[in-house]
């Protein structure tokens, strides 16, 4: 019990010396200035705008003033947010960007409906009492520091001056007590310590409150966050499918189309040679044409499998079985699927597994790969690919894993990677059962 008291007391008293305190106090300083200024400007403009627009003649001017205030509020909000991020160590993101409308009425409408700007105005209004508290904290600390210096001042002061020294004290009542002796100066110093500690803790407390305000009023709303996340993953999905189509076109052009052109050429030449009775050359040309045809078929088969493997139609478990069978490193599959996931999810899971097996084969020097697929709980599909190799897999290095993560995120899935150097590696892909 006593030890606890000493510990807590130590923390309380040592607070003023911490680095965070200096940042807190600096924030209080800047925040008071910005807050008071912001409050005054916003209130003035808003009040003026509202009263003017209340009268028929001044409606246009009033509305303009209000929209001006809203624009200002966004700028102010951004300033406050940046200050808070830098000095208080927060990471609040900007709310969604403002999209201007078209036409005079449209633009007015969008400006007046700018939720982020109105929330910024609320912040500016609430900031006033907060700024007062921050100012008071600063006053406490300054008073305390001055009082702390009194023992020294007393000694210097006494030399030429018989009058008593007045002590600064932070309470708004009670006046300034005077000091008559060196005992009093030490008492002043003690009061100084108390003031500094109190000021520090008040600054911390009020800044914590300010942080909450900034996060709630100056950051993005959760709906807006969701929308921007969806926009981001939609872009990924669209780019992914465009890239896939380009790959298909390239594979067709360089593979099957080329082989079929060579085949046509060989047959054309063979037909010419038939008239010359040059059987040996004709046979040779037809053999070459035949080889071209067989190779073209193989290319087209591989291409089709890369687009949609036919084996997937019989279910994810058998598709994974065939992947495991054709893997260079021995692989085993454990499947525990209650119901079939949506076809799009099956396709994503299959290609994830194929990519992970290929990675393991290329980089892991493993002896065994284990693949597990299960329905974790209702509506969630879980794919685990583990190998006993050298580990060290990194999503940042090489685009295979990064592409996999992106593809999975487009359906709100998740990829967890555990691959310490030395192994073993375990990659877990969690997907919803329906896309």
């Amino acid at each position, binding site marked *: 019990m006593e030890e606890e008291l000493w510990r807590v007391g130590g923390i309380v008293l040592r607070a003023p010396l911490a680095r965070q305190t200096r940042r807190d106090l600096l924030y209080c300083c800047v925040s008071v200035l910005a807050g008071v200024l912001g409050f005054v400007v916003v209130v003035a403009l808003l009040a003026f705008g509202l009263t003017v627009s209340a009268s028929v003649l001044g409606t246009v001017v009033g509305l303009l003033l209000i929209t001006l205030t809203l624009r200002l509020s966004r700028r102010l909000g951004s300033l406050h947010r940046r200050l808070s991020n830098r000095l208080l160590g927060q990471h609040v993101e900007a709310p969604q960007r403002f999209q201007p409308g078209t036409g005079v009425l449209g633009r007015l409408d969008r400006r007046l409906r700018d939720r982020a700007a109105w929330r910024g105005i609320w912040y500016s209004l609430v900031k006033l009492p907060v700024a007062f508290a921050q100012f008071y904290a600063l006053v406490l600390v300054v008073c305390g520091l001055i009082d702390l210096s009194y023992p020294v001042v007393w000694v210097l002061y006494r030399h030429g001056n018989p009058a008593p020294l007045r002590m600064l004290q932070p309470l708004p009542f009670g006046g300034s007590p005077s000091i008559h002796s060196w005992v009093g100066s030490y008492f002043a110093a003690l009061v100084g310590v108390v003031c500094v500690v109190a000021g520090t803790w008040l600054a911390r407390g009020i800044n914590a409150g300010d942080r909450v305000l900034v996060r709630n009023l100056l950051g993005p709303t959760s709906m807006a966050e969701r929308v921007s996340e969806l926009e981001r993953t939609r872009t990924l999905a669209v780019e992914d499918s465009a890239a896939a189509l380009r790959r298909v076109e*390239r594979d067709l*052009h*360089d593979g099957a*189309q*080329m*082989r079929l*052109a*060579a085949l*046509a*050429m*060989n*047959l*054309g*030449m063979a*037909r*010419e040679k038939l008239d010359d009775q040059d059987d040996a050359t004709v046979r040779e040309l037809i053999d070459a044409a035949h080889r*071209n045809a067989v190779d073209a078929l193989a290319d087209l088969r591989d291409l089709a499998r890369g687009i949609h493997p036919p084996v997937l139609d019989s279910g994810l478990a058998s598709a994974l079985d065939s992947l495991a069978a054709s893997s260079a490193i021995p692989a085993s599959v454990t499947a525990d699927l209650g119901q079939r996931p949506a076809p799009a999810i099956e396709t994503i899971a299959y290609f994830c597994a194929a990519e992970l097996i290929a990675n393991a084969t290329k980089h892991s020097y493993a002896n065994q790969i284990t693949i597990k697929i299960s329905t974790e709980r209702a509506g969630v599909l879980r794919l685990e690919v583990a190998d006993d190799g050298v580990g060290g897999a990194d999503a940042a290095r090489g685009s295979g894993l990064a592409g996999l993560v992106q593809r999975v995120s487009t359906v709100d899935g998740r990829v967890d990677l555990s691959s310490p150097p030395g192994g073993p590696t375990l990659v877990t892909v969690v997907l919803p059962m329906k896309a």
Partner: protein
Amino acid sequence: MRVVIAEDAALLREGLTRLLEDRGHTICAAVSDGDALLAVVAEHRPDVAVVDIRMPPTHTDEGLRAALKLRHDFPGTGVLVFSQYIETSYSAQLLEGGAAGVGYLLKDRVANVAEFSAALQRVADGGTALDPEVVSQLFRASRQRGGLATLTPRERQVLALMAEGRSNAGIAAELVVSGGAVEKHVASIFTKLGLPPDESDNRRVLAVLRYLGGKPQLQDG
């Protein structure tokens, strides 16, 4: 005839080499990218260069750019450009410097060895060889419906073959008619469409293409 081949797919490069050597032509060099093509043409000065449009490094239009440079730097060498697809803007660019010694064919055309050979010969001799597919696209896209409607079916065939760059003799052989019949058709076409009659086959090609819609100006063939 001395030929240079530029094609990045080894299978096709060897096939073309064999096909042309079979016909008695000499392959001075077979290369697989645009820079090498320019180097070997400068070195060997062949009669014609066969160029694939898609070549490394970007596999978009290196061949076309090399072909345009060849046309500019070595006017004595015919250029026959091959493509997997017909891209009408490419044919327009190729014809910008005139229609002499230039050809644009689909790769599918190599399946018919005789036609390909004839086209190559035309280009080497300073004529024109446009793929029939290019020509039929031009016909379809042409805004001169009214003018083309005044032609008889036979005359439209002759017009298409003229646009491909064939001479009267070539048209006569293709349609299995006499040279005189071809001349009569040609004169009738030129009158009906209001085109200036011209001796040179190259100018004729340009006139027809210009008529069909938005093709480059006449220049000295």
